[in-house]
């Protein structure tokens, strides 16, 4: 079915655009790159050739025979989708013969298609309907014969349905599933008249291999596959291009909007084909799971209370803001200026994040501002800044299309970053090699048509040891690229690093016992990465969320520098950022020691710039990090906090510790969509606004700044940036922005990597990868071209230090955590959508050996106990994880997986060690009783002494 604002070119642009060729179509001369189909060339000339099986997200298929054309000097009627443009061709897309042929084709289609257009969800947007009208067919020309009716509609998927009666078997859905998504869940069953599109073994979609990405729905020309949200008589009136608010891929989406002008409603969400991050693809979250925005759980009225044990009291915005401001000032008057702080959110826009840190620094007068990136990618910022000079990934996502060897470590792209994973899988199907370093057999290790060449199934917590072993092999076997290093890196640091990694104790053989990885695998992986052509590293939280997270990031940068894999397409060190705007929140000066653009608060020149712009004097000392805020709260020196869009109590490690700290504060202001777990400890609740309710920008994992655009008015009355302004004004520091674009203008004025960014340019270009300034007015897809941002790349020696979290007789297993495709982080959004049909609870994956030793069967309730806490969940016996390791997700508050995680953290950035916790698992029969007891013990929890800082 047609998107409402997109013109389809029929076939994709040629992969490698050749020299231009000039031809004539319907008398009109046009130049196109060699390799362009006639159909696409015609579309580019504004001539729409009729078509049904072609769409520009899929390679030409040539099955519907509707796009036939005539070429002067050639016999017959070639299909324009499969015929390539050649110089000098004279093509005719309209003639009497062509009309007759096309009418014949359409008459055949129509003879087996219910012509009940007026009651069909695709009415007005149906390609068959449109083609029939174009060729002048209104009814079947044939006597009633065999038809595919009646057939049952498959409504098993919560978001879309499959009505085989409307299907024309063009195979677009099958090809979309294979080529775009890479899941291969659909097929054509049977042949001839019996041909039918089915999922897996002719199963309902929900029970099939389908991952509900929606690519098939998008590609369907009729309403055979259609969103359930499309109903007859609910027209889509206009389209708004915006950016997905889930993961760090940052897909560009087009919201098709209906409803009334007073109450606009998103009717469906389609990925934007001109989106630079996603190229017309999306996943089950971005495409379908936006319903949380209108979920009845949304708290739309401000709330206050004196104590967290009191019931909430609904108040006006004015009262809530005034109360919050009074409390902040009261606490500051009593306990000092630094007794308060604020938390920016990686879920909010760049502009909102910038405002919160500005509020804290300028209005609160303290640098006590931090962000949830602390608990995910702070080691990325630190590690990449130290080695290469910039706190961000080095490539655009499209760079993967030129990678020859892909090294994935501590990331699970098919679940965590599905749209990028589809791009990566396409490259792997083209023959790129794959090395996976992960304790778990993630989807990429083996799935249809994808197989890792090497899977280094290391013990959690030994990344640095494995990376040192890889470096050892590369250096001692002479696989480094010496001329590259000599030209681009600091020699003394390189020599020190070489000597260090060459030491016998860093050999894969010496480290095998620690890492659990066979030395031969490490050697093969090192050789492959160093010598297999373009080597690209992709990593995630499995690298950063460790006591040596920053060390591991530096070790990755070392490997890339030593092998010359930085500074061009197809290579690089790429963090797969978790949240939609975690890159942006870091860029915007959310850390206590840095202004926007990663400039230290102690730098007088930078500080002067901000002091002048903001008209206040600023503290030259870095403020508190999140864990320090908790410690200070327990000490009694930190009493008030403004938290925008973050749910620490569920997301941060060692929940007992966090809740004790939260309970010790006098004023916690939570601004969120929902009364989340953290709001249980709040004194003021300010309703937040979803991404559909405001303007702004997000910055994705490839440094790409993309616009979000308001689709509906803020449901609670104010966008988040406006709420921050209200609070600022009440604190006596008025901010005067009329639109987020003005905030971006201020960011651009104050941030060297953003100086040429503006909303006008974003509208014009679609998106921009920073740095975007005079040197790079349209942005920078690939970083470190020619030289590193810091000048010479710097190697760091990366001594492996085992985590202090050890297994022993009492806690013999290692717990590591991760995510699943259908749910997102703490699940505040996805749990409030139909995505729960795929994952309704967190489960504990346990290896069959460990399960058997404990008498645990698949589906049993188990108790999970660590040194810090305990929780209950169901076991899933699985060989995806190695013996000795257990794995769970943290999407559900009932599970409280973080009750058991510890307060160990990265030495450099305090990023918590979520990925390694020593635990015991026991089978239990009385899950509820166990859970109640655990909860009681938790509530009796003591404010712990603050000896861990």
């Amino acid at each position, binding site marked *: 079915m047609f998107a409402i604002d997109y013109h389809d070119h029929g076939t994709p642009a040629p992969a490698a655009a050749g020299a231009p060729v000039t031809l004539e179509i319907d008398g009109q001369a046009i130049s196109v790159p060699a390799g362009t189909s006639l159909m696409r060339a015609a579309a580019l000339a504004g001539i729409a050739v009729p078509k049904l099986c072609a769409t520009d997200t899929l390679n030409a298929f040539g099955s519907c025979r509707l796009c036939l054309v005539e070429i002067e000097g050639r016999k017959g009627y070639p299909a324009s989708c499969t015929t390539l443009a050649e110089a000098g061709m004279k093509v005719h897309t309209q003639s009497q013969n062509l009309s007759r042929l096309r009418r014949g084709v359409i008459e055949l289609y129509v003879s087996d298609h219910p012509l009940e257009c007026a009651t069909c969800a695709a009415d007005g947007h149906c390609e068959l309907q449109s083609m029939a009208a174009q060729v002048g067919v209104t009814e079947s020309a044939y006597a009633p014969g065999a038809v595919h009716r009646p057939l049952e509609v498959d409504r098993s998927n919560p978001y879309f349905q499959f009505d085989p009666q409307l299907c024309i078997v063009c195979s677009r859905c099958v090809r979309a599933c294979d080529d775009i998504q890479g899941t*291969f869940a659909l*097929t*054509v*069953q*049977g042949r001839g008249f019996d041909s039918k599109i*089915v999922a*897996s*073994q002719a199963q309902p979609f929900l029970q099939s291999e389908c991952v509900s990405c929606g690519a098939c729905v998008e590609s369907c020309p009729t309403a055979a596959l259609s969103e359930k949200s499309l109903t007859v008589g609910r027209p889509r009136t206009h389209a708004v291009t915006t950016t997905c608010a889930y993961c760090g891929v940052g897909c560009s989406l087009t919201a098709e909007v209906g409803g009334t002008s007073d109450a606009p409603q998103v009717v469906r969400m389609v990925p934007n084909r001109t989106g630079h991050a996603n190229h017309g693809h999306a996943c089950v979250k971005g495409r379908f799971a936006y319903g949380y925005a209108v979920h009845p759980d949304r708290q739309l009225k401000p709330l206050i209370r004196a104590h967290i044990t009191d019931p909430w009291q609904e108040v006006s915005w004015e009262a809530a803001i005034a109360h919050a401001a009074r409390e902040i000032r009261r606490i500051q008057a009593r306990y000092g200026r630094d007794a308060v702080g604020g938390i920016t959110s990686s879920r909010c826009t760049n502009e909102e994040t910038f405002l919160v840190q500005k509020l804290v620094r300028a209005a609160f007068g303290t640098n006590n501002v931090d962000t949830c990136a602390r608990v995910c990618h702070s080691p990325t910022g630190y590690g990449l800044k130290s080695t290469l000079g910039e706190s961000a990934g080095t490539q655009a996502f499209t760079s993967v299309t030129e990678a020859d060897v892909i090294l994935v470590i501590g990331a699970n792209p098919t679940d965590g970053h599905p749209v990028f994973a589809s791009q990566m899988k396409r490259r792997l199907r083209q023959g790129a090699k794959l090395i996976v370093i992960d304790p778990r057999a993630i989807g990429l290790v083996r*799935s*249809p048509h994808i197989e890792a060449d090497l899977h280094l199934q290391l013990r959690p917590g030994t990344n640095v040891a494995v990376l040192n072993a890889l470096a050892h092999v590369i250096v001692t076997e002479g696989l480094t690229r010496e001329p590259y290093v000599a030209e681009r890196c600091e020699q003394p640091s390189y020599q020190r690093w070489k000597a260090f990694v060459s030491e016998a104790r860093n050999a894969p053989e010496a480290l095998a016992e620690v890492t659990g990885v066979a030395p031969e695998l490490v050697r093969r992986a090192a050789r492959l990465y160093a010598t297999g052509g373009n080597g690209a590293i992709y990593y995630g939280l499995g690298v950063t969320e460790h006591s040596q997270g920053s060390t591991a990031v530096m070790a990755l940068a070392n490997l890339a520098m030593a092998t010359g894999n930085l500074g061009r397409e197809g290579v690089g060190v790429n963090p797969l950022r978790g949240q939609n705007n975690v890159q942006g929140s870091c860029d915007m000066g959310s850390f206590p020691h840095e202004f926007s653009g990663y400039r230290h608060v102690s730098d007088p020149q930078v500080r002067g710039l901000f002091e002048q712009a903001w008209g206040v004097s600023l503290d030259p000392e870095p403020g508190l990090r999140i864990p320090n805020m908790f410690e200070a709260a327990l000490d009694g020196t930190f009493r008030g906090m403004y938290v925008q869009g973050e749910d620490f109590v569920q997301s941060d490690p060692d929940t007992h510790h966090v809740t004790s700290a939260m309970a010790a504060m006098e004023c916690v202001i939570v601004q969120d969509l929902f009364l989340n777990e953290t709001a249980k400890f709040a004194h003021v609740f300010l309703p937040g606004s979803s991404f559909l309710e405001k303007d702004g920008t997000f910055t994705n994992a490839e440094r790409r700044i993309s616009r979000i655009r308001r689709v509906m008015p803020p449901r609670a009355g104010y966008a988040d940036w406006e709420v921050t302004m209200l609070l600022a004004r009440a604190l006596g520091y008025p901010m005067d922005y009329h639109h987020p674009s003005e905030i971006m203008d201020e960011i651009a004025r104050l941030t060297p990597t953003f100086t040429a960014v503006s909303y006008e340019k974003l509208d014009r270009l679609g998106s921009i990868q920073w740095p975007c300034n005079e040197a790079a007015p349209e942005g920078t897809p690939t970083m470190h071209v020619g030289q590193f941002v810091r000048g010479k790349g710097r190697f760091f020696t990366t001594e492996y230090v085992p985590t202090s979290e050890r297994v022993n007789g009492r806690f013999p297993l290692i717990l590591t955590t991760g995510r699943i495709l259908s749910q997102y982080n703490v699940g505040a959004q996805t749990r409030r959508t139909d995505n729960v049909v795929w994952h309704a609870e967190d489960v504990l994956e346990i290896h069959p050996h460990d399960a058997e030793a404990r008498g645990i069967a698949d589906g049993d309730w188990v108790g999970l106990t660590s040194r810090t806490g305990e929780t209950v969940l169901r076991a899933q016996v699985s060989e995806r994880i190695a013996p000795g390791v257990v794995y769970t997700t943290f999407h559900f508050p009932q599970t409280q997986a973080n009750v058991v995680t510890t307060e160990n953290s990265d030495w450099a950035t305090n990023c918590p060690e979520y990925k390694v916790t020593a635990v015991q698992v026991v089978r239990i029969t009385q899950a509820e009783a166990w859970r109640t007891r655990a909860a009681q013990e938790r509530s009796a929890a003591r404010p712990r002494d603050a000896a861990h800082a």
Partner: protein
Amino acid sequence: MQTSALDQEHDVRRILAQYKDRPGPLLEVLHAVQGAFGFIPPQAIGPIAEGLNLSRAEVHGVITFYHYFRSTPPGRHVLKLCRAESCQAMGADALAAHAEARLGVSFHESTPEGHFSLEPVYCLGLCACSPALLLDGEPHGRVTPQRLDALLEEAEAGAGGGR
């Protein structure tokens, strides 16, 4: 003739081990599985897909594309009548009608008691002896309705199954 699920699983694994490293092994695996069981049990599709690193949908698509591959057990005897041009010219249609009447089933069906399955086939390369058929893999030429009856009776009387 019913093999246990466990035996089946074992056989599928053995077949996969034998063929999986050959280029484009799916058709060979399907032939071998059908050779072993007389059909391709739907529950074998998962292991076949897993073993060859394909999706279940792909395997299902290939199986259903070829009429030769069966998803249900065949009768004890399989009669394949050629319906291609030469045989048609020599009376295959009448022979087919006779076979359907005699067995009481249509093409692609098995007799209720599971004695016979009737399948069409398009050219056995026996055009010189049209009309031709295969009964339990054995070719027979110049088959008249009477000869067909005799063949079927013989098969029924014979001990055990053909295949």
